[in-house]
């Protein structure tokens, strides 16, 4: 882990020093922000851990827990809401057996997350499957894509 962090730091310090960009790189690399990375950065940069923790918990994009292999993002923007995205979300959580308050399946295969708006409102409801945007989503379509993902593994 240290090697990766060293590399991130080296490339970031070349430009203006910005803690947000560093954390984004960490997140991109590990898929979440491990506690150890936080400790390491805090010591290295001489920034209190509490401040880093404050930044991480403030922004919705940072995660302190490991994420699933496949990330399914349900858009909860207004246009998606009026076109039934809440139902999609609830069905999905039920189907994947994810307990309330959690977002990832026990086997770390799937993470379900909400996003405020991906800005593809005219093809609502929108679901992002592993960074690929799918519009006019129905539960049937979603189940089919699911099967595809599970089979390809």
């Amino acid at each position: 882990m240290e090697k990766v962090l060293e590399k991130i730091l080296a490339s970031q310090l070349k430009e203006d020093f910005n803690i947000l960009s560093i954390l984004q790189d960490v997140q991109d690399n590990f898929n979440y922000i491990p506690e150890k990375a936080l400790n390491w950065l805090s010591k290295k940069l001489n920034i209190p851990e509490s401040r880093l923790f404050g930044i991480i918990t403030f922004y919705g994009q940072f995660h302190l827990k490991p994420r699933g292999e496949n990330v399914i993002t349900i858009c909860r923007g207004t246009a998606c809401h009026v076109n039934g995205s809440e139902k999609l979300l609830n069905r999905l959580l039920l189907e994947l057996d994810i307990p309330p308050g959690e977002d990832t399946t026990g086997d770390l295969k799937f993470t379900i997350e909400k996003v405020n708006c991906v800005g593809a409102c005219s093809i609502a409801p929108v679901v992002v499957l592993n960074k690929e945007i799918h519009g006019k989503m129905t539960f049937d379509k979603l189940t089919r894509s699911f099967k595809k993902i599970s089979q390809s593994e």
Partner: protein
Amino acid sequence: MNKDIIIKVCTGTGGIAAGGNEVLSSFRKTLSSAGIESSLQDKCSAHKVGCRGFCSKDVLVDIIINGEKTVYQYVKPDMVERLVNEHIIAGTPVTEWIAGEDYHNFHKKQIRVVLSDCGEIDPEDINSYIKAGGYEAAKKAVTSMDSEEIVKVIKDSNLRGRGGAGFPTGIKWELGLKTRSDLKYVICNGDEGDPGAFMDRSVMEGNPHSVIEGMIICAKAIEAHHGYIYVRAEYPLAIKNLKLALEQCYDKGFLGTNIFKAGFDFDIKIFKGAGAFVCGEATALMRSIEGKRGMPTPKLWHSAIKGLWGKPTVLNNVETFANIPKIILNGADWYRRLGTEKSGGTKVFSLTGKVKNTGLIEVPLGITLKEIIYDIGGGIEGDREFKAVQTGGPSGGCIPAKLLDIEVDYESLAQVGSIMGSGGVIVLDETDCMVNTAKFFLEFTQSESCGKCTPCRIGTKRLLEILTRITTGNGKKGDIELLEELSGDIKATSLCGLGMTAPNPVLSTIKYFRDEYEAHIKDKKCPAAVCKDLIEFSILEEVCKGCGACKKVCPADAIRGVKKTPHRIDLNLCIKCGTCFSVCKFKAISKS
């Protein structure tokens, strides 16, 4: 063959979702295997274009032969071969795939300034923008205009901030110019957070150069040498296209040192947001660039005097910057005359929700909501009844049918309890519950409230609690009055725009749809049959054919019955997800 062939394929986010990239590669493959590409060479091109606006018809494809344009809709990769064979080679357009009347109605009342090149040029190629007149305005501003001159043109144009608040852009620039400092900043706010608005995304994706050009002109006007574009992390394609555009600008000498060889320096960096709605607020955005929690700070002075790192900073929205080059080229008078007396120009709206034609539209300010919804939007989907239109996202309000004749500008929308905001227009029909809609927005603002000031942090939480109470059938007498009082207090005492506008959805829905609130509280009924706790699903015995479709999809196994006999729902098990309601082909499921 002596033809000039251009094929434009929409590959904005909407286009890609519909398969735009596959359509484009299919065109390229078919053209090269038919030998057209090699015989015509540079007279034949198939390229990407950004968002065309009418995303619900994607993939939209333009085939232009010798200047004659035909627009095709819903193009799929397997349709390409026929298009090439019949239209391009044989010369007869495939009429059944041509975009129809609604496509033309959608565009008839629009005037495209910001979006004029969006969907026409290739966003990945700076030469395509230059060919369309790009960077002429920046060149003119940098080489032959002085700062005061530029500021005057922008002031005269009556352009107002398109981020939502509508602050006159020229006045902001003047303030930035007059404040003396060794360092000044230009920031483009691309943190488009309003759910239901996507004009900034489309511009950044489809014509990133127009934003950069606007920023160059601003930099010259206020004598700044450093710029930032703050983009939401949720917009990966916008970030990619902007990055590419910046690289090309540096190569051409439009950015960097001594730009346009006029002795002026200007640099732009991209800053990727990290998912916080409040960062769309100017002071919060600057704190975020400084690497802090993105929390707003009290506006003791305008950020054009003291902004990023305490230096004078002019921050404008994406759409505002994209307007600038056109104003410099066509003059202030031209732009001012497009709009109303107090607000010049055009505004881009994203028209979504329950209308037939959804998409991105650009109309002159002063157009009526009715024209937007019925002429451009084509009316309500499924011919249901119109209920309300929500403008301005979570900071805006719901406008009922009786007010559809108002002319859209900053003042008139504020008068009816809504705001212009960034330009989201979401149409609601009779199947939408207004209390639930208000609750939806409060859920959003409550979770996005940064927590710095008490009225917003606690006030929105209390509002949401009361709304939740009402929608679950536990509303009490006096709740409506309590909502009104609390909303007034939050508006009056919050620190930033988020809190000051958060109660708008509540206040406007109470104002125009009080009877719906009363039905929830007094009769414990949801008139639109949306609120889960106030409705019950049942199967109409005389209509049910016993096909078993509902039984198959029910996630709670709550439906009982033998094939070909009427089924019934076990209400103790039913989780009211509504799946059965949406799959039943015979309308045998009733919601009451």
